[in-house]
């Protein structure tokens, strides 16, 4: 299996090339948001997604690549994977001429996609320079004889544009491979999806995502309180990008508190002083992550649930309306209220199943309303009153 070794050699060469290259100026790097700074540079950097990575790694050496369809929730590595793959196939010199990236920020009407792809496909295939340099280059990058068209965020393309794409894909299939990327595979029309090998990107599992976060924190010299990683994972729901952004912002917060401690305080109030004490000005705390993630404190949700309980004295309406008004003024997002309330109610054993059955229907209505842009105050108040009504039934 010569090719196997070939691949290894190639990877080793590429790796040494990387480390040999001058690191980008420190200053510049520091200014990048961490999600970009830690965007995987090669397939090896991709966390989780083992199946996909294994299959793609095999394509690095064979000179063939199928059309591909990547799908999965936000922040799971779809765009990163295809970019890393392209980089490893073509290397820095060829990538510009061999890869066309079209995403939702580009005009993607039928004729425009067709034109752009046509122009791109017709361009002569660029090749590594001749001579020893070229041979070196080929050792590192296989430079297979086709180009890649990446259609990122393809679920925002219209059905018509997608249909038109079928022909385009066929016409140029000798020299181009397509990679379609989307969040919802159901929004890609069947004839198109069936032309591609499908790769599902799963929400990142805690173990893998946790390790990546720990690495980043270590690299950035950020101390984490116990449980911070777990909280990051809980709040980001398998979206690594979100988790990294939370982490960065929490780290900045710690930095700020430290700076503040050393800065002479101008008319500071007592509770500022308390903040500093709690966080100790050193490690990122679990509470700060919750805060940043916009998670509603348990106590607030409990207060809402309490207000919805049937009572003998006083009116349920007044108490529910009071809590809801406060929550709206606090700016909690309605979708967050709905999902936290849902979790609380559905897992509450004290509520009988026949009540839960009715309650979940209300949640369905409310969710639809919110997605359509209904007024949040009315929607939440309505939801809570309806739930309270059900709870009050005998």
């Amino acid at each position: 299996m010569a090719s196997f070794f070939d691949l290894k050699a190639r990877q080793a060469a590429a790796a040494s090339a990387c480390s040999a290259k001058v690191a980008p100026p420190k200053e510049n790097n520091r200014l990048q948001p961490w999600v970009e700074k830690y965007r995987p540079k090669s397939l090896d950097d991709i966390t989780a997604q083992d199946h996909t990575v294994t299959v793609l790694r095999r394509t690095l050496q064979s000179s063939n690549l199928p059309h591909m369809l990547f799908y999965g929730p936000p922040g799971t590595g779809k765009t990163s994977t295809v970019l890393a793959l392209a980089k490893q196939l073509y290397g820095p010199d060829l990538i510009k001429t061999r890869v066309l990236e079209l995403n939702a920020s580009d005009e993607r009407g039928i004729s425009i996609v067709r034109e752009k792809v046509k122009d791109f496909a017709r361009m002569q295939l660029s090749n590594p320079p001749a001579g020893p340099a070229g041979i070196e280059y080929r050792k590192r990058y296989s430079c297979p004889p086709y180009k890649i068209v990446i259609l990122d965020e393809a679920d925002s393309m219209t059905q018509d544009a997608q249909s038109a794409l079928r022909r385009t894909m066929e016409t140029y299939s000798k020299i181009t491979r397509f990679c379609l990327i989307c969040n919802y595979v159901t929004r890609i029309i069947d004839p198109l999806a069936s032309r591609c090998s499908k790769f599902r990107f799963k929400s990142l599992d805690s173990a893998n995502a946790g390790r990546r976060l720990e690495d980043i924190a270590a690299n950035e010299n950020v101390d984490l309180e116990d449980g911070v990683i777990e909280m990051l994972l809980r709040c980001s729901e398998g979206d690594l990008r979100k988790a990294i952004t939370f982490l960065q912002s929490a780290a900045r917060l710690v930095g700020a508190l430290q700076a503040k401690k050393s800065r002479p305080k101008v008319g500071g109030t007592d509770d500022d002083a308390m903040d500093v004490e709690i966080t100790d000005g050193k490690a990122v705390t679990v509470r700060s992550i919750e805060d940043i993630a916009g998670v509603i404190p348990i106590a607030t949700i409990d207060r809402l649930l309490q207000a919805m309980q049937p009572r003998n004295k006083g009116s349920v309406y007044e108490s529910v309306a009071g809590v809801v008004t406060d929550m709206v003024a606090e700016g909690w997002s309605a979708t967050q209220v709905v999902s936290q309330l849902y979790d609380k109610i559905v897992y509450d054993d004290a509520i009988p199943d026949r009540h839960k059955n009715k309650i979940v229907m209300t949640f369905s209505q409310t969710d639809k309303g919110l997605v359509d842009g209904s007024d949040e105050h009315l929607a939440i108040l309505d939801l809570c009153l309806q739930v309270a009504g059900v709870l009050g039934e005998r």
Partner: protein
Amino acid sequence: MALLVDKHRPRSLDALSYHQDLSERLRSLAQSGDFPHLLVYGPSGAGKKTRIVATLKELYGPGVEKIKIDSRVFQTTSNRKLEFNIVASVYHLEITPSDVGNYDRVVVQDLLKEVAQTQQVDLSARQRFKVVVINEADHLTRDAQAALRRTMEKYSPNLRLILLANSTSNIIAPIRSRTLLVRVASPTETEICQVLKKVGGKEGWKEVEVLNKRIAAESGRNLRRALLMFEAVHAQNEIVNDSTPIPPPDWEALIEQIAGEIIAEHTPARILQVRAKLYDLLTHCIPATTILKTLTWKLIPKIDDALKADVVRWSAFYEHRIRMGTKVIFHLEAFVAKFMYLLESYLMEMDF
């Protein structure tokens, strides 16, 4: 003459009078150099914009305050010309894409790429990136939001976005995943009183504590509203005291009147009268949702507890219809009819 709201608007993070910890957080983000994209959300009148302007100043210094208004023309794929206003300083732009309705995608696509591909003109600028502030981001169409996704990643060395919204519910998940969420809660009534005291002091007005408390309560924790009422009370009265009446805005007074009429009589003739008033409100540019909500809040105290949940349900129902439909008056009127029916049936049942 500038309104109080504008005249005494705090211009730096230090000058902001509440949510101290949030100001501190924004300051640390601004100073860190790796400022992320932000999605700032919270109820209206909570001071989101003020806080962001102050953050921009922290980022770039006083230069951001020198703004001019550009008018730009964009061309849609169907060759329609769109006029669009941009508020800009050397360092940042501010846009309201919902101004052009369904064509917002074109604006977002063209403008942001253009910004992203040009370097900072001012070489001594403190940040390498420019900031684009997008107002009413929750009104962006799905297409426009999708158009932001890759742009936010690809051009992050040159471009940061600050999205302002009342809520995150209408922001698609991939965008939420790309931004740091910043919640700006409404100030509490106590905090509003503090602001009123400060502003009143600058105007040389004697502090009337009870009156200020009443204004704060009346404002529904909306600072902009509170300041407008504060100004109105002082403008309309030579001497103010604890019991000086706080005049509600005209439109609110009219809705109060409608509520009274609906309660008093449940007939088709009454619906007709009410319709004229609803039209009146609409032609004065009061949003249909505001009318429906205000009407609901005014009706609720006038009815029995047993009916309240039902009224809220139908109010939410027709508000949803307002969103989805095209003729808002139909749904407002339908709510009025529904309410009359509910109340009438309830009263009949009581009689038996």
